[in-house]
């Protein structure tokens, strides 16, 4: 039996091992690792709403796109440093989360919520496409050269370190939040909203908080995505994208932070390999999720639970 302490130690060793990645990979592989880091945050943010709050909220591409466009627009038109862009993206993402939470607070649940949030995402994409004057429409916004606190982000290596730092910070913050009273309240709302409210827990506040936090996390991911791709296009935030995000949450494990990381890595790496054959990436994506749903409903992270229960997150009770 592996103890909690060993697991904790192995996490830190794992983090240290991550630091040597840039020295053993080429530019293309490192680009994929960076993509994985971006999607880790995307999945993490999405998982708060899908897994912890237990609501079908498909506004994730809206948060992602708003984050990316905020950074891009600010940097292109006002020339602010990237650092400010990230903060602004977190704020606008959080604001978008707040807007989306209004629907949930009006008693819209389940499929109604799924459909209205899907509509929100698609309406945002329409705004990017038709707001030509600012967003340059379907041509996309070309990002200027950016630097993070003096480090020029001109190749994949510095991007990797900056992204890794951001990802670890956000994961740690989210993990702490979810372990706190707030996180437990959010999971309680998932289990039974009426009971939670009857215990004197202000459910509406916690629902808003979950939405805002999710929006902010995905907004930061959007800011990273803008720098990663160097051109922000409306097509990156379409309907299929939100489904990929949903798949990452499910494959990794709903409501699990480790699961978010695993899901993002798996579903970034494998479809990339299949992309060379048209159609096979979709086929593969569909099949892997069907298999996970049928045989591993808790996601890939539940395989780790067999190794040691220490991997089970403390705040997430079945």
């Amino acid at each position, binding site marked *: 039996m592996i103890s909690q302490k060993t697991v904790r130690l192995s996490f830190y060793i794992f983090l240290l091992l991550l630091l040597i990645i840039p020295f053993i990979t080429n530019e293309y592989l490192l680009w994929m690792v960076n993509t994985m880091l971006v999607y880790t945050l995307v999945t993490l943010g999405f998982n708060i709403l*899908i897994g912890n709050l*237990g609501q*079908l909220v498909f506004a994730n591409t809206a948060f992602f796109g708003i984050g990316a466009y905020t950074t891009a627009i600010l940097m292109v038109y006002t020339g602010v440093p990237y650092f400010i862009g990230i903060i602004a993206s977190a704020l606008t993402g959080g604001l978008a989360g707040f807007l989306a939470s209004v*629907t949930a607070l*009006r*008693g*819209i*649940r*389940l*499929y*109604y919520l*799924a*459909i*209205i949030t*899907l*509509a*929100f995402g*698609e*309406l945002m994409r*329409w705004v990017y496409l*038709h707001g030509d004057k600012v967003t340059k429409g379907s041509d996309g916004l070309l990002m200027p050269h950016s630097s993070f606190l003096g480090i020029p982000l001109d190749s994949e290596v510095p991007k990797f370190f900056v992204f890794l730092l951001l990802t670890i910070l956000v994961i740690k913050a989210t993990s702490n939040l979810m372990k706190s009273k707030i996180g437990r309240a959010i999971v309680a709302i998932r289990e039974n*909203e*009426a009971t939670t409210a009857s215990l004197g827990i202000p459910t509406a506040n916690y629902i808003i908080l979950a939405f805002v936090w999710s929006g902010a996390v995905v907004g930061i991911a959007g800011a990273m995505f803008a720098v990663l791709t160097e051109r922000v296009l409306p097509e990156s935030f379409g*309907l299929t994208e939100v*489904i990929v995000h*949903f*798949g990452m949450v*499910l494959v990794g494990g*709903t409501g699990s932070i480790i699961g978010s990381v695993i899901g993002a890595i798996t579903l970034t790496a494998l479809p990339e390999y299949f992309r060379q*054959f*048209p*159609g*096979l*990436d*979709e*086929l*593969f*994506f*569909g*099949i892997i*999720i*069907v298999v996970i*749903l*049928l045989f591993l*409903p808790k996601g890939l992270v539940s395989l780790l639970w067999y190794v040691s229960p220490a991997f089970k997150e403390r705040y997430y009770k079945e």
Partner: protein
Amino acid sequence: MFLQLTLSGLSQGAIYALIGLSLTVVYRATTIVNFGHGDFVMAGAFVVYVLVIYLGIPYFFAAILALIILFILGLGVSRGFIDPIKSGPHIGFAMMSISLGYVLRGVARALWGREVFPMPKVFDMEPIFWDDIVITGDVIFITGIVVIFLIVFFLIFYKTTIGTIIQAVYQSERGASLIGVNVQIFHQYMWGVGLAMGALGGILISPISLLHPDLGATFLIRGFAAMTLGGFGSLFGAVIGGLLLGVAEQNFGFYINSALIDITAYLVIVAVLVIKPAGLFGKRITVRV
């Protein structure tokens, strides 16, 4: 011009109504919204294409055969993929239907690449000119078939024993199972019926819209909008919602801005759910404690 737009809107709306209705049939029976429905719509059209072009079966029989194939597919989906995860959360159903749709789309794309196929014209007819209104053969064909289908559907639903059984299960699954209805089999049949109806929509629209693996995506949202507008879960509402949506799309597109055609459905969804979540004919949403 308004009449012309309304007319073409109605024939578009007929398809939306059909897809909204087919989503509702499954939703009312199983409380599952099929997020992969668009891809089954696409699959119906592709099956007809294969049967007509590769096997040389006449269009009419190919369409009937395609509906039967999709019906059987629906039985299989319900039995093989939905039943095993019944005890899980609703999120699983949503993802299951999406990923089954992905598999279908992947198959279509792997086999036929990224090309676009013209479906053979079925109903070649000189357009009718009446005053300044032009009525094309396609409009008559689509609207006619949908109207006939809807009449048959609602007659079965309200006038026959089968319809009474369906209504009974819609009202109370438990009650129906107590009087001897096999609810599990019923769910499978309703999946079959739902997919076949969606496929009919795909078969009807494909001669106009061309055939490609992403055909279904636009129709899924239109179907959702039709359902939401008419009232989620209301059969009649889905039909009216679909027709209204079709008319609204064409008129908004012409009188305001052509870019609006793409997002009318989304605007309708947001407006309805924010202003009157129950839609036109739906029951009020109540939270059960």
